[in-house]
């Protein structure tokens, strides 16, 4: 079954929110949500890297790993389709290496091109390599949209849309959480619950609120 673009946007921002429903990217969610400014910076950095990483991993998977008619061994070297190697088992290893080097590369590039942007995002970029949301969205793109027999273009568009909206969804809950945690600082919380425990409980309450989005009729 195929989703429309609009459905993918709503689903990945609200219904299947990466943090609150899919449990991806919790480390930055808990670590960088103490202040509003840094939450916005982190959110932007994640959205940016997510979109680029999804684009690159999709290209690699389609043209090199999966034995489809788009595979370069078929389209460029004219290998018969049954001889095109099935390298899908290298997915994890290829994706993580690509993401790690991509983050390094983006960091160097931003530093050179726009020092202002680098000052805003720079310190968050190294943290992103181990952010499971990035690898998570890359793997999910393949699992959800890489359906045998569908035209490659549609899965490409779906991939980019899902990555960008997942990043937006991440930013949304990160900013919301930072807003709450800034206020929590002023309140008398029982000592054992201070810090992470209360943050988790707040996240739980937010997650209850987000449950309301599932079952929305967006057909």
């Amino acid at each position, binding site marked *: 079954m195929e989703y429309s673009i609009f459905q993918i946007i709503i689903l990945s921002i609200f219904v299947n929110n990466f943090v*609150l*429903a*899919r*449990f*991806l*990217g*919790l*480390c930055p969610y*808990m670590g960088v949500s103490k202040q509003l400014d840094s939450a916005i910076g982190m959110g932007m950095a994640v959205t940016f890297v997510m979109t680029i990483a999804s684009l690159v991993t999709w290209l690699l998977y389609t043209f090199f790993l999966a034995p489809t008619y788009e595979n370069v061994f078929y389209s460029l070297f004219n290998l018969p389709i049954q001889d095109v190697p099935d390298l899908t*088992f*290298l*997915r*994890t*290893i290829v994706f*993580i*290496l690509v993401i*790690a*080097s991509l983050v390094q590369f983006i960091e160097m590039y931003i530093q050179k091109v726009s020092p202002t942007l680098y000052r805003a995002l720079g310190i968050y970029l190294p943290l992103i390599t*181990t*952010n*499971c949301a990035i*690898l*998570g969205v890359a*793997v*999910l793109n393949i*699992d959800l949209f890489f359906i045998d027999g569908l035209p490659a273009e549609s899965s490409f568009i779906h991939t980019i849309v899902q990555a960008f909206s997942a990043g937006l969804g991440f930013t949304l809950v990160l900013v919301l959480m930072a807003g709450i945690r800034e206020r929590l600082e002023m309140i008398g919380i*029982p*000592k*054992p*619950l201070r810090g*992470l*425990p*209360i*943050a*988790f*409980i707040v*996240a*739980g*309450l937010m*997650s*209850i609120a987000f*449950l309301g989005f599932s079952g929305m009729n967006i057909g």
Partner: protein
Amino acid sequence: MSLITEAVKGIYKENPVFRLALGLCPVLAVSTSIINAIGMGAATTFVLLSSNTIVSLLILLFGKILSEEGQKSINKIRIPMFIVVIASFVTIVEMVMAAYFPELSESLGIFIPLIVVNCIILGRAEGFASKNPLLPSIADAIGMGIGFTLALTAIAFIRELLGSGALLGFNIMGGEFKPVLLFILPPGAFLVIGIYMGFLNWLDERKKRSS
């Protein structure tokens, strides 16, 4: 003796989940049932053990065959090399699970490939195995793996018991009990881990005060 201390520290004092707050994503995501929790714990422990072993051996090998200078330069690609090692073991787990435990593989889903970004594994490879000999590295991996599995199971215990009135799939709360669905749903994961962490802090506090 020290090997045992190395292994035991991961279970309580430096528990990766409750104390170090590492590898939270899989903990929250797959703790809906004890079976899932144990499956995930076993997979992670396997990867942790294998990667710690290989990393420790690799460092030993480099120390034997490379000059001082060579070791220094190989140090620069240390992290990418560790990532390749870890990713390979994760892929092995992924394939073996899909072939022999299809149901478990389906319910853990995307979190099997994501073991590769579990901070515990790269953290232990880089922070412990690359600096220690083989045996302590193995002990450390076993301890951390068991600590991770126990934490996961502890959360799954509460969530399965209250959320579906069952343990390991057997209904034990009786027919009268109405399951509190919230615990099986995503919010339950956040609430349970928050309360666990708070409880452990409270225990520590009490211990400190009494001594």
